[in-house]
């Protein structure tokens, strides 16, 4: 490019001046960015949290491998090795029938358990988790075929439902976000286009005075960038303040057990950065796109 420093300064100056000289058009553009980014921000906060929520539940998916009660003790032990050898298995945890009975007794409180202690009806169990929870079904099938395994239980229907729901939630979320961003770009490029149509005569004059296309384009680039960043101020402030209240209330006041939103730091800052970046991109994109066709003079 080889642009001189003074020329760069000149473009910065002109770009910022245009912000003031275009009065209400500037306000309209900034307003469009602001509204869009608020929507995108709220939406992203919801989607990221839902996604995290879904991932948490997914990673809790585990299967119980009930062993044949008549199995000899050494065979019970060797099955652990067989389980770990299966492809995609993440962790294997042994839980003997005695441990399970104790746990059950503790959970249920004082009852007459003597009978069971003499002849424990439970079976020895392995709790198996796959590395990727989506492999649960296929791994469960393999385990069921092993010698000495009585049955494998992982709440098949529930897990499958969960996976479908979270999959569709993610797809719908992604589509909505992309849709919102494109609507914003369209809005902004239209708003800026109106200011540029008003300036198309000026662009023609600039070219007649010997300005190159890039010389004309740079101030518009700067202007778009500024419009985008200025439009991001209110949404970012809303995210920083709003999410602060939300995260405080969700963790302290309401204890819904497993509903835990993403922690304020770093999430609120990451989201703010993202909104700022989206604002800058739509501003620049909108203005550069709309100036393009007027440069063919």
């Amino acid at each position, binding site marked *: 490019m080889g*642009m*001189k420093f*003074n*020329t760069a300064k*000149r473009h910065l100056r002109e770009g910022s001046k245009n912000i003031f*000289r275009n009065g209400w058009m500037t306000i309209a553009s900034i307003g469009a960015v602001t509204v869009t980014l608020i929507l995108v921000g709220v939406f992203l906060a919801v989607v990221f949290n839902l996604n995290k929520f879904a991932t948490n539940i997914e990673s809790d998916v585990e299967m119980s491998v009930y062993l044949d009660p008549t199995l000899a003790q050494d065979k019970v032990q060797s099955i652990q090795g067989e389980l770990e050898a299966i492809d995609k298995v993440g962790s294997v945890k042994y839980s003997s029938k005695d441990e399970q009975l104790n746990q059950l007794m503790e959970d249920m409180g004082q009852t007459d358990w003597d009978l069971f202690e003499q002849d424990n009806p439970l079976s020895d169990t392995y709790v198996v988790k796959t590395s990727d929870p989506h492999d649960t079904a296929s791994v469960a099938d393999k385990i069921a075929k092993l010698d000495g395994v009585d049955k494998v239980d992982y709440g098949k229907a529930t897990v499958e439902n969960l996976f479908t729901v979270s999959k569709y939630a993610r797809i719908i979320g992604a589509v909505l976000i992309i849709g919102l961003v494109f609507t914003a770009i369209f809005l902004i490029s239209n708003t800026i286009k109106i200011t540029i149509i008003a*300036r198309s005569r*000026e662009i023609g*004059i*600039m*070219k*007649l*005075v*010997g*300005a*190159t*296309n890039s*010389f004309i384009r740079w101030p518009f680039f700067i202007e778009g960038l500024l419009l985008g960043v200025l439009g991001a101020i209110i949404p970012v402030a809303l995210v920083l303040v709003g999410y602060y209240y939300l995260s405080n209330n969700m963790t302290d006041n309401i204890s819904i057990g497993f509903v835990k939103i993403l922690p304020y730091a770093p999430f609120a800052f990451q989201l703010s950065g993202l909104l700022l970046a989206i604002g800058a991109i739509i501003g620049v994109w909108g203005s550069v796109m709309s100036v393009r066709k007027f440069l063919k003079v």
Partner: protein
Amino acid sequence: MIDMKGVHKTYANGVTALNGVDVHIDSGEFVYLVGPSGAGKSTFVKMIFRGEKPSTGIVKVDNKDLSTYKERHIPKVRRKIGVVYQDFKLLPKLTIYENVAFALEVIEESPKIIRDRVMEVLDLVGIKDKARSFPDELSGGEQQRVAIARAIANNPKVVIADEPTGNLDPETSWGIMKVLEDINQKGTTIIMATHSKEIVNTIKRRVIAIENGRIVRDEAGGEYGYEV
């Protein structure tokens, strides 16, 4: 400096503004373009700075055929030529100062040189005190002088002036002619379209008369030749 060979120009609406123009203008010449309204004078000068492309024929500036330039090199041609447009073509959102500075910013002059030179040319055309005004705050004659200041700001090799005195009172007109004569003395080629019989007949220079898109007369030290 400037050559045209067999230049025809037909606009998109079917009007033929130039109908076979052959001309040679040397470096350092001072040329008047005269002729009735609609004869093709403005179209003639537009050929030189590529304000319009010829329909057929060749236009050369500095011995280079303009049609061989890539689109992105056209700005370089335009920077060698200062143009005073018949309709001024000032940038409405820039001040008078900024309008003139623009011609120097595009050639990436340093800010100090720009400041000095802008004030110098504004002074030369007698409009220094309006530097901070916007074009729509100026009279037609004042705007015309700004256009002249912008055209000569970067010391172009050629100055094309399309009726530069059209809106000026006689006194200011002679002042502007003095500016044009001065830069012509320093070697700048001047091409000036005009309807001013008085100027053409007083400051005698080469006169090219155009009628219906053709050159009908071309004489050194000629007369205006039309009744006003």
